[in-house]
């Protein structure tokens, strides 16, 4: 293929294309055409002469049409002329013989506008989740008034899925957290000959903060993601609509049993996490610091009071509600097929992690303010 051009007197130019134009040569054609088009002054006309073109494929035609549109946007009229019958059919198919519509691209959004829109979206999302909380409380009241309408039979299987099946990972992670914390703490405390206080450090931080938080993060990754994906795929396959038309409130039927299950399961998982976290600290204390089992245990019992554990459990209940609520809300908000389910699942996990950290910080400040 090749292109040839000649500029004639009356501010009109013509390009000639020739040979077999295929996708294989399209890059070359495109570059040549653009180069010439750039040289054309606004207000002039161009004829693209196709009479020597033996054959052309759709890809090349699409490029010509795009070129026309670009030229039209600059005020240059371009026409495709002289095409043979077979090529002309292609010209027609790709609308190369009608006036190009100069599609205006949406102006690119500035950074500031993006930040603004993101912020507004964040607050709207928060509002939607709070609205969802309200709906859930209402339907919880409804079920309390009429227990027969609750979907109780889903609670136990959900507890198994979210609780029993999470035990190994909760045990492993919390043990390691206790272990690592004791290890780091020991290095510092040994310098003061205060190794025994590793027990205090681990005991209090695990029961008050890390046990509930790490457990919640694990449950968020496992069950929060699962809830969002389940409800999301039910949404896109019209199952939630079907539920509604069958007279089952999705809130009552889908969200409440999941939330109840998580609220029941989370404190248990957290207690377990507390226990193995302390064991992890103990492993370092006995193995690395030469403390005795009894000594470590007595120190831990001295340091950790009942409120440390129970405040962690209170937190874990709130975490459970937050996880279930955000995940279900995101699931219900899913649109756009399988891809939408993936997107919502991701955003459910990310939003929940964010919410967990914020809630934890609020609790810490609250407990601190009231000397709890």
């Amino acid at each position, binding site marked *: 293929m090749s292109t040839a051009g000649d500029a004639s007197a009356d501010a009109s130019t013509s390009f000639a294309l020739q040979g077999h134009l295929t996708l294989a040569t399209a890059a070359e054609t495109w570059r040549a055409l653009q180069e010439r088009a750039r040289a054309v002054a606004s207000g002039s006309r161009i004829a693209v002469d196709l009479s020597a073109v033996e054959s052309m494929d759709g890809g090349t035609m699409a490029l010509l049409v795009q070129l026309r549109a670009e030229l039209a946007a600059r005020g240059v009229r371009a026409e495709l002329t002289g095409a043979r019958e077979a090529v002309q059919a292609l010209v027609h198919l790709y609308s190369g013989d009608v006036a190009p519509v100069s599609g205006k691209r949406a102006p690119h959004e500035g950074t500031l506008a993006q930040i603004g829109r993101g912020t507004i979206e964040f607050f709207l999302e928060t509002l939607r989740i709070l609205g969802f909380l309200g709906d859930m409380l209402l339907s919880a009241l409804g079920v309390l008034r009429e227990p027969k309408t609750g979907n109780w039979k889903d609670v136990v299987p959900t507890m198994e899925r979210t609780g029993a099946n999470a035990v190994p990972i909760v045990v492993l992670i919390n043990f390691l957290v206790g272990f690592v914390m004791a290890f780091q703490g020991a290095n510092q405390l040994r310098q003061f000959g205060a190794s025994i206080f590793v027990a205090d450090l681990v005991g209090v931080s695990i029961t008050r903060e890390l046990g509930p938080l790490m457990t919640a993060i694990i449950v968020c990754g496992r069950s929060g993601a699962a809830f969002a994906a389940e409800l999301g795929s039910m949404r896109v396959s019209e*199952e939630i*609509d*079907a*539920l*509604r*038309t*069958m*007279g089952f409130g999705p809130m009552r039927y889908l969200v409440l049993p999941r939330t109840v299950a998580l609220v029941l399961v989370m404190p248990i998982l957290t207690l377990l996490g507390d226990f193995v976290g302390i064991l992890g600290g103990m492993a370092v204390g006995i193995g690395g610091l030469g403390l005795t089992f009894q000594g470590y245990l007595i120190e831990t019992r001295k340091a950790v009071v009942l409120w440390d554990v129970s405040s962690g459990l209170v937190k874990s209940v709130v975490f459970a509600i937050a996880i279930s609520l955000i995940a279900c809300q995101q699931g219900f908000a899913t649109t756009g097929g399988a891809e939408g389910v993936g997107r919502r699942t991701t955003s459910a996990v990310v939003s929940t992690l964010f919410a967990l950290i914020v809630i934890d910080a609020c609790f810490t400040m609250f407990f601190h303010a009231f000397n709890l």
Partner: protein
Amino acid sequence: MSAPALTVTGLTMGWDDVVLQQDATFEVARREVFAVLGGSGCGKSTLLRYMIGLDAPLAGTIVIDGIGSPDLDVGRPPYGVMFQSGALFGGLTVAENVALQLERWTTLPADAISAIVRAKLRLVGLEGAEEKLPAELSGGMKKRAAIARAMALEPDLLFLDEPSAGLDPVSAVELDELFLTLSRVLGLTLVIVTHELESIFRIANQCILLDKESKSIIGRGDPKVLRDTSTDPRVHRFMNRLPRSA
């Protein structure tokens, strides 16, 4: 003559800034097989969502005989709905899908429920599939199961979204036969939203044709009559499946 099964008056369909249809008014008589026709994107599914109470229209009223405007929050729904994909619950077997509403809205004992479920599945030609999961069914079987589920509470009125879309010709014809049985033998009123004309000529005795450009109903009546006698070129083109430029 008894009251119409469904009355739609002055319905405006759309979202905040888009209007899909304006001032749509029609009636569906009892025991009729009523088709809502129209090209893709003209708002058929949206109309269906309004009729079954999933969404609220921008303006206008919908009255279902015996209950007034559709409201999904008042309890046991008086009509059945078959969604385009079937919308069977993936975690439940076919039998459990059909039994769900019977368990929720009746006080029947379990053995009575399973007898009813079996009878419904036999009616739609799915005997033996009770214990299968939806994922194990073919497209046509899913739709049949969804019809059995929609009929669980013996509604007089059944809504169906694109029932024969995506089915092979044989399954589509079998499904049409089932609809004719439901309508003639059981006296159900069927409202079918579709663009599949072939099946509509076989089963529907009334239809409306929605048009996207004019945002209005451009044809109504017996679909076969509409096909053969309509003088409106748009109606003629749609009902005879002619290309726009012809």
